[in-house]
Structure formats: structure tokens, C-alpha cells
């Protein structure tokens, strides 16, 4: 198997996560091939529909399975996973089917997103150049996690390899666009964070009562289109916050 993600031969690994969980990891740090492998492997486990597997998820570089160890033994499940891992080169897997491309209106900077200035400075850019760079980037949902419907997006150009802040900010609002370490997080809940708050959107990523409660899916692509504070205010009535989507060809 090609080890495109990590130069060591250690990956993929299978580790336990509690008595009823297994974690199949394709790298120790985020990379495009490891992320593809995690998404594709999790999708294949779902398709396989093994008896005793109760829930699956993908994270940035891993696929996770929760199962009932009283009905599906660890050794049996591990052997099946090993066999599936060897069946193909997961690092070269295609991205998920049915991906969408989203354009999400975003106010960069202003008092709605007060950390654009310091993030731009850390990336060695003036604010206007930073807005251009961030709004032109077409990023991909690498995983949904932490809070309901909340995407981790990447990968941004090298210049944005800036650290998370050591101190957490106060609560950032729902719809905040934050960045660090060449990734963006679009927050679905209000929470304190160490990520730098560079943009504000009106999108509601998780609406429990809606027909489609979770808007984004892993593999979707996103572009953050600049807009003004007043226009954004007008979009707050729309649960999608003015966002539009089309299928990725």
C-alpha cells in the first residue's frame, strides 16, 4: 500500500477507543491523502453494514467504529478491518459522492470579526490582501465534529500556518469563521475558542427541527464570499444565511 500520508510504515493503525470502539488511523497529522482515506474507509464500513457495528464516524485522519463487543468480538472485527484495509490503496480513494460547492456570504473583519487584523499580520499580509486571499480560497470540509454540523475546512495556503492563541477568547458567536494552522472552523455553536475570529456569517449549520438538520457534509467545498455588515444583517432571517450551493461536477 502507498504510504503517501506518513513516511513511516506505521499507518494505517487500528487502536481501541474504549471497550466498544475502534479507531483506524491513516496518519498522525493532517494530510490530504490521509483525510481522503479516512472518509472513504468510513463510507465503506457503512456500506458493508456489518452486524454489531452501531455507529461510525470519520475524523480528520481516522475512521471510528462503535460496536457491541458482546455480539461482535474485538478479534473478529479487527480481522475484518485488516482485510478491508488491504483490499485497496485507501490513500488514493476518491472523494465522497454527491459533494456540493457552497458560497457563503461573509463579513471579514470589522467589529463582527475582530481578529482579522492580527491574523493577517501573523500571515504577513495587509488586511485587504488577507481578505482577498481568504475569500478566493476554495476549501473543503475535511470533517464535521466537536459540535453538531461544525466543519473543519482546509487546506489554506502556507502563509496561514499560524498558531492557535494560547488564551481562549470570550465566546464567539454562532456562524463565526475562525482560522489557525492552515484550517478554518465555521462555528455552529457559541463557544470560547483559541482559533482566530476573522469572519462572520449568518449560516445556521445545525437546525434540529429542519428537514435537513445538518447543512454541510464531509467532502463539500466552500468559498467565503465577502459581503457588508448590513447585507449580512438582512440574511439572518434565512437559515442558510444567504448561502447557495450547487453540485460539484
Amino acid at each position, binding site marked *: 500500500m502507498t504510504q503517501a500520508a506518513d513516511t513511516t510504515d506505521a499507518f494505517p493503525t487500528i487502536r481501541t*477507543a474504549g471497550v466498544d470502539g475502534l*479507531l483506524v488511523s491513516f496518519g498522525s497529522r493532517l494530510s490530504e491523502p490521509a483525510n481522503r482515506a479516512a472518509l472513504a474507509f*468510513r463510507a465503506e464500513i457503512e456500506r458493508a453494514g456489518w452486524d454489531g457495528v452501531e*455507529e461510525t464516524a470519520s*475524523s480528520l485522519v481516522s475512521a471510528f467504529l*462503535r460496536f457491541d463487543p458482546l455480539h461482535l468480538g474485538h478479534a473478529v472485527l479487527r480481522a475484518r478491518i485488516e482485510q478491508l484495509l488491504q483490499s485497496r490503496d485507501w490513500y488514493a480513494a476518491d472523494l465522497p459522492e454527491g459533494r456540493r460547492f457552497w458560497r457563503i456570504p461573509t463579513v471579514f473583519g470589522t467589529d463582527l470579526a475582530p481578529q482579522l487584523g492580527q491574523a493577517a499580520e501573523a500571515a504577513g499580509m495587509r488586511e485587504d490582501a488577507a481578505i482577498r486571499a481568504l475569500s478566493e480560497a476554495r476549501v473543503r470540509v475535511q470533517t464535521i*465534529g466537536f459540535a*453538531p454540523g461544525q466543519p473543519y475546512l482546509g487546506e489554506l495556503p502556507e502563509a496561514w500556518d499560524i498558531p492557535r492563541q494560547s488564551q481562549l477568547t470570550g465566546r464567539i458567536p454562532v456562524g463565526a469563521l475562525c482560522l489557525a494552522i492552515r484550517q478554518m472552523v465555521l462555528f455552529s*455553536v457559541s463557544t470560547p475558542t483559541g482559533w482566530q475570529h476573522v469572519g462572520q456569517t449568518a449560516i445556521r449549520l445545525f437546525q434540529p427541527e429542519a428537514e435537513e438538520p445538518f447543512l454541510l457534509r464531509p467532502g463539500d467545498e466552500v468559498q467565503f464570499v465577502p459581503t457588508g455588515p448590513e447585507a449580512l444583517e438582512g440574511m439572518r432571517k434565512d437559515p442558510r444565511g444567504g448561502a447557495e450551493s450547487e453540485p460539484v461536477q
Partner: protein
Amino acid sequence: MTTLRILRAGPGVTLQDMGRSGYLDVGLSRGGAADRLALAEGAALLRQAPECAALEMAGMGGEFEADADLRIALTGAPMRAALDGVALAWHASHLMPAGARLSIGPVRSGCYGYLHVGGGFAAPNCLGAQSAHLSAGIGNALSEGDTLEIGPDGGGETGLLLEPEDRFDGGTIRIVASAQTDLFSAADLARLESEPFHRSRRANRMGVALKPEGGGFHLETGRNLVSEVVVPGDIQITGDGTPFVLMAECQTTGGYPRIGTVLPCDLPRVAQAPAGAELRFRFVDLDAAVALERAEADRRSALGKARRPLIRDPHRMPDLLSYQLISGVVAGTETD
């Protein structure tokens, strides 16, 4: 349809069932009752499915009234309970006549008490469960004036008691190695088993912070771990070295290293440990862990056989003659 009206409620009263499965991949953790054993006990007492939701009461209870006769069961952390001023036994089922006032006070030990109703609550499902998941914005904490509809009850005996597993004051917690256990030094792993921990005041349905007696735990390497799936029971070591046990309503991913994972069968003991209670951890291997889970599953499915009638002591029931003993309302002071 029978309705339960909330006349007064503590700040942490929510509807909880076994939670929602299948949404981990979109960032929503299962949630559900902090003490799932209590749900099984309530179901056994009322002879109904353990999937029925119950009112989870964190620390404080409330006052309740129903508009029709209702079977109820009280489980989890023992709380002071009375029906129209007459004390009720905890860990037991009772008949609550229409219009009677059920008062539930603060916990006497443990953290989470549960009020179950015959027929179960008929609240609408959201994403496959009735559970409130407050950190995700699903459902609400219940308060004065709220009403809850109750499903049709097939009926059955009340006045039954279950001797609960004593899990309301800390104790020994069995854990298994997690994906990151081997990032920790042998010395820290030894400390984890040899030192007592005390539950800190920082605890809720998302997680429980622990105070290690010998100071924080620290990783020499691996501070920059990629964010990974986390599960209830994981013991995260946060930036300042504090161990944090993740609970039912935890986030779905985290970047802190995890030193071990609590067995699901011991998680109720962590959830119910009151502030200051002593907890000790003991690693078991995977085979032993599965065997312990199997034993617990067997024990839970046999709970129905462990029910026994409440013992009534006429000497402690001064108004004995006013009772219709058949209806199952008893003094309740005799059991604890």
C-alpha cells in the same frame, strides 16, 4: 392523554432517554441519561422498555402533579420525596393519584435522580430520541408551568422496591487503555492506579473534572495531537494536567491526549460521584472488560426478578387507616 405538570423544578431537570445514535459523524454526540443504569432500574420497576425517557434531576428535584392516576418510579441518586406530605421510598415504584402533589427535594447522595412514569413520556422525538441535549441546542431544561404528556400505560403493580447498586459516593472505576495511553510515562500510568482522585466541583453532563492528589499529569511528547474522535468515558488530560472524564453529552472530537477510558458499566458511578467523592482507577485488559460488560448486561436484564414488595411497618404509619393499601402508596421511611 395524561399530563404531568411541573409546579417547580431545580435548574437541571431534563427529559432523558438512551440518547441518539448515528449522528457522531455530523458532530452530535449520543447524549442521553447520565446514569443509564437508573433508566434500566426505572423500567424494571414499572415493567416497561428501558428506552422510555425519564425526568433526570441534577442535584435538585421539583414539584409535580398529574391530571390522572399515574404509576411512578424513583431511581438514581436518592432524593427526599413525598406525596402530599407523606414520605416515599426511593428506588421504588408508587401510585400517584390524580391531583396529588409529588415533592422531590435535593439529593441525599449521588448527583442525578430520576422520575419515571408508567407509559413513558410522549414528548416528540427529535432526531430519533426524546433526550434534551442542551449543549447542542436540542430541547430545554424544564421549569415551572411546563407540562409533559404521558403515553398510555398498560398498568401493573406498584409498591415495589429494587436494591440499587451502591454507586452514589465514588469508589473504584475500571478503565481500559485508550488510543493514546502509551503516550504517557510508566510513572504517570502507575500514579493513575495508585493515587486517589477527588471529584472537583466542575462537573456536568459533558464532563467531570478530577483533582489528582499528586498534582497534574503531563505528557512529555505528543502535545500537538491531531483532533480525534472522543467518546464518553475517555479520561482527557487537559492543558493544565487536570484529568477530565467525558460524559454523555461530550463533544465528538478533541485534541487533548486520553490516558484511558472508563468502562460503560462503571460510568454511572463516575456520573453519580458527588463533589469531593474519592475515585480510584484500575486498568483491566480488554477481555476482562468485555466480560465485565457482559455480566452487567445480564444483571440489567434480570433486574425485573430483583424487585420485591416494599415492607410496610404499621408502627411507622400513624395514619395507617387513611390508606388504601392496595393502591400502593406507602410511608416509605422504612427502607432508608
